């Protein structure tokens, strides 16, 4: 009796009352209900589509007239703080970005505008896409061992995983520029060098 199928069958038999003279009609109905699992049978009124049609039109009309009203109020300069559309007019109006969102990289600078990077090659090593290529050189300051003579970052390969930022011991590379539109017309121009990465 613990069998859920048997239990459900009894429930359905009770619900559809399969004992009466026109039981065969209800039996077909019951079989259909059995096949459809726990889905509720639609009533006749629901089957005419009319309630769903009305509720559908009602919903879209509510949005239509509300938004239309606010659009008109905006045109006359009222209620500017109530938004009539949820969209952003992209190039002019940008969406606020999450604080931890990983966007295009930049190389941070020291006070004298030289890169903070010490060419330790950690980011190049950890990069799963192998998009970073550092050429190290000796730094004139004896306190700093090395500096990147060139720092190539191929955004065409980059997967924006942020491992380079995580791994950097000097906080020299960050992904906080907020730049998302890094599209270019050629693969070559997707390759960023040190100079481009240090531009603000």
């Amino acid at each position, binding site marked *: 009796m613990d069998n859920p199928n048997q239990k459900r069958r009894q429930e359905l038999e009770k619900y559809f009352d399969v004992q009466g003279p026109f039981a065969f009609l209800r039996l077909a109905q019951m079989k259909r209900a059995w096949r459809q699992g726990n889905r509720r049978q639609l009533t006749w009124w629901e089957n005419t589509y009319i309630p769903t*049609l009305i509720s*559908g*039109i009602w*919903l*879209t*009309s509510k*949005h*239509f007239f509300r*938004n*239309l009203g606010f*659009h008109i109020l905006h045109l006359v300069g009222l209620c500017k703080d109530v938004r*009539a*559309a*949820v*969209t952003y*007019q992209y190039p002019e109006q940008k969406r606020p970005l999450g604080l931890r969102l990983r966007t295009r990289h930049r190389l941070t600078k020291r006070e004298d505008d030289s890169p903070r990077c010490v060419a330790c090659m950690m980011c190049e090593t950890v990069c799963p896409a192998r998009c970073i290529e550092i050429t190290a050189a000796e730094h004139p300051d004896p306190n700093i061992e090395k500096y990147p003579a060139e720092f190539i970052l191929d955004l065409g390969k980059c997967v924006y995983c942020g491992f380079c930022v995580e791994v950097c011991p000097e906080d020299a590379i960050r992904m906080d520029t907020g730049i998302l539109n890094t599209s270019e017309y050629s693969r070559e121009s997707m390759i960023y060098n040190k100079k481009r990465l240090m531009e603000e």
Partner: protein
Amino acid sequence: MSDIAIKLLLSCGTLAGAFGIAGLLTWVERKQSAVMQDRIGANRATIFGFKALGLFHAIADFLKMLSKEEFIPQGANKFLFNLAPYLSFTFALVAFAAIPIGDRLIVGIRTIDLQAANLNIALIFIFAMMSMGVYGVVLAGVSSNNNYAFLGSMRAAAQMIAYEITMGAAIMGVIMVFNTLDLQMLVHREGAYMLGGWLPKWGIFVQPLAFILFLTAAAAETKRTPFDLPEGEAEIIGYFVEYSGMKFGMFFLADLIETVLVAALMTTLFLGGWQVPYLLPDGFYFPWGGHIALSNIPVVLLGILSFFIKVSFFIWLLMSVRWTFPRFRYDQLMNLGWKVLLPASLVNIALTAVVIILLK
């Protein structure tokens, strides 16, 4: 001579009105769908820095369509292929001739019926023209030598037959009540009042079931979304898959013109055409006893305005329907047409007949 001039003016006016509204509908469609989906909609086309709420997109579209290559596929029947868009477009426009847009205008000794062609079989004429429009769709699919286009036109033919029968049967009730096929006379008879002068005798009040059936069938007639099986944008692209440039544009526009036509027809049959509630030819007579005297010209202008508002309402409704509901499956479409709408419209005819005889 002046008769011909007046007729020309009237038909040009009707044509320009229908055409203008249909052209504007491309903008309405974009904006309405945008506003009801919490978007803003097309607003980037500018002329000298003016955006005009995106109205210039219609012009931009038109120019784009005109400047595109007109492609004729290999193996297509060139004559029929070129003919099809004109058929579908022209017949949709011609049907406007029989729709009364206003009351009788009295200029000097003349009385001008504001109707491009006052036919005494206007309703039959309109239905004939709408059925002819199907030829455009079917020929487009058959002549373009493309299986998908062919499939689309077959669906179109099946759908049009199914729904035009319902449409014809639905208006039978209206014809029986108003006892005329002349649309101008029908609108005049809709100017009567029931329930002690409070309720105008509009089609929607005397034939509510016919109104719902006609609305559904008319939405199917325009081949737009809940019934867009012939186009089937998501799967077969439909009967105009091989068309490009302005010929595609004509099919596109023909759909919109049909929307306007159907809205105008619904207005005429069910919402009293150009009738303004309680407005008689010499002014307002309110059922609570008020009276405002008006001369002929303001009455006619009010009538045209009322016609325009009613048509706009139906266009809004059809657009809402188009942007609210998902489409039918093919078998659901046929079930709805043949098993629900057609019997219901026949029942409506029988009921109307019984009621008319009982009321006599």
